[in-house]
């Protein structure tokens, strides 16, 4: 029997039971929709993260205290206080880091802000440089809306000056001017010297909700510690990144008396490293969610098998007749197998369309929320995968009912009432 006619026969079989066919493929539709949605959103998240990382400037290198996490179980971070003022001085030496342009220590931690009766739970960001002006502004591409950034002299003298993010300003001051006002951070009083415009997320820091102070002041009066949470170094240009990373590593190892690299109490992360690590996290998450969604495909497949078995029983006489007029076992097997594959493939196509539409709508919502940072991508891989998987579900779960159909004896089948 020609394949074209096999296909037509299968289609006719499905058409005679339209509503049942539609209900049967729902499981497949839902499964494929979920997979497409998850994979598309996963890709979008990955792109977003990459663009955020790039927002920090690709020449940026972060030195992070503690041992580098090697796997998901490396939660217990030790040596968190390994980066000290002495390390900063060593790194600042041109002979140690010949290709570094800027170096800035960063401290951060939670802090409670108050102004009059208003309070706001914020994050304090301590940065700046005792030698260079406008280092924070340059590194994070920030500008003040009112007032100005504190200068190097403020860092040297541990001035109690603060620049507040747009949300902090709104919470504490409403529509009134904040410049020159005194706010309390913890128990220490700070003078507001600048406010930031609303910028949203800038490379993982939401400056809208932060208060920026000199790192010296933050360390002494707010956080009460002398070690840094990061030292951020920018290389002169991209070609010098690797060299600078090596320079940093050897300088710090020497300073910390470390000979065995596995005993490092710090790690150096470039933007490329960061992008890769975050990419891995989203990939793992996407894979996990996809696996969960596949359960629905499995359940859908069982539904298909169930309905095909019912259909085979119902059409016992038809099978008998077809055999009587010359259909071979293979003809009958192919007919029922094609029916289930067509069912799942149609379900797959509907799922791909639904999943793509949903993820497109979601990406519109997300980009409205995140300020155009979210980009919709048609998940080509996921669509191809969806088609292959749905056809395989039809094949795998259709083969048992189809075999039962093909093995029916023609007389038993014709006698069946």
């Amino acid at each position: 029997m020609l394949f074209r006619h096999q296909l037509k026969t299968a289609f006719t079989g499905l058409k005679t039971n339209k509503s049942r066919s539609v209900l049967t493929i729902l499981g497949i539709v839902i499964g494929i929709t979920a997979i497409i949605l998850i994979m598309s959103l996963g890709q979008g998240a990955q792109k977003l993260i990459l663009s955020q990382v790039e927002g920090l400037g690709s020449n940026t290198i972060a030195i992070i205290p503690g041992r580098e996490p090697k796997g998901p179980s490396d939660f217990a971070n030790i040596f968190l206080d390994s980066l000290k003022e002495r390390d900063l001085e060593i790194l600042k030496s041109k002979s140690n880091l010949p290709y570094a342009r800027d170096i800035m220590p960063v401290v951060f931690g939670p802090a409670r802000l108050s102004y009059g009766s208003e309070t706001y739970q914020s994050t304090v960001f301590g940065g700046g440089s005792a030698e260079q002006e406008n280092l924070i502004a340059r590194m994070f591409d920030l500008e003040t809306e009112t007032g100005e950034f504190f200068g190097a002299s403020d860092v040297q003298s541990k001035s109690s000056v603060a620049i507040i993010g747009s949300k902090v300003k709104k919470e504490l001051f409403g529509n009134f001017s904040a410049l020159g006002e005194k706010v309390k951070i913890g128990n220490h009083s700070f003078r507001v010297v600048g406010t930031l415009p609303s910028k949203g997320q800038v490379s993982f820091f939401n400056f809208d909700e932060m208060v920026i102070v000199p790192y010296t002041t933050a360390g002494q009066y707010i956080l009460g510690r002398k070690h840094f949470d990061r030292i951020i170094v920018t290389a002169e240009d991209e070609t010098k990144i690797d060299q600078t990373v090596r320079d940093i590593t050897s300088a710090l190892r020497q300073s910390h008396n470390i000979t065995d690299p596995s005993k490092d109490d710090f790690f150096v992360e470039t933007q490329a490293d960061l992008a890769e690590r975050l990419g891995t996290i989203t990939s793992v998450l996407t894979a996990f969610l996809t696996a969960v969604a596949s359960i629905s495909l499995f359940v859908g497949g069982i539904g298909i098998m169930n309905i095909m078995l019912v259909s085979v029983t119902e059409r016992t006489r038809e099978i008998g007749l077809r055999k009587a007029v010359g259909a071979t076992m293979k003809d009958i097997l192919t007919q029922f197998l094609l029916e289930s594959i067509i069912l799942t493939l149609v379900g797959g196509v509907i799922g791909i369309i639904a999943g793509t539409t949903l993820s497109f709508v979601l990406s519109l919502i997300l980009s409205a929320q995140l300020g155009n940072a979210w980009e919709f991508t048609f998940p080509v891989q996921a669509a191809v995968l969806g088609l292959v998987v749905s056809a395989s579900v039809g094949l795998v779960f259709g083969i048992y009912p189809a075999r039962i159909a093909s093995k029916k004896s023609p007389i038993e089948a014709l006698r069946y009432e």
Partner: protein
Amino acid sequence: MSFLTVQNISKRYENEGVVTSALGSISFSVRKGEFIAVMGPSGSGKSTLLHILGLLDDASSGRYEFDGIEVASYTENEKAEIRNKKIGFVFQSFNLLPKTSVYENVRLPLLYSSIPQTEWGKKTKDAISAVDLSDRIFHESSQLSGGEKQRVAIARALVTGPEVIFADEPTGNLDSVSGKTIMKILRDLNEKKGHTILLITHETYTAEHAERIIRLKDGNLKSDIKVTRRFRAEEFIK
């Protein structure tokens, strides 16, 4: 030379260890172009015999030659091919495909045949016109009367140009007028086109269209006699 030959054919069914005998030991032969009626009360093994002769079922023992070749030597696929090419079936309950047109129902055996597709249309239309249903060609089978349905079934049996037609109580579900039409068609096929016909019936007046009547009882051959006063074809035109 005989076309169908059965020698000591028997059929036993085993169901949960209980053996029931459907056919004892039957022998007879059928010439090409013969019109034979098989009669007997229900349970006498008529249908079982027809299924074995039609290659739908295997005998438990004995020898059956179809067109000179022993059937036991055929594989399932070969039997399917013979059913397609050389045998046409007409059943009491029509067995048409639901929600399918007359045309498609009649064409069905061609889908499984080796006849080139270019000839399908003509063969199908010819078979439909042979049972005088050309005006109903694109009607759905469910829109037809019982007699018309059985004519569709006959057209379907004819479409591949088989040598023998097995009809299992073809008039059993029909009123007498429709029944007569069906018998006239079968008679014409036998007399004008030379098809061998094996008809199962329990009505004597239907059986008397045949040249020979084989009677079965309890799975055994009771009699095998030539019809002396055969119904003349003209008689039912009245």
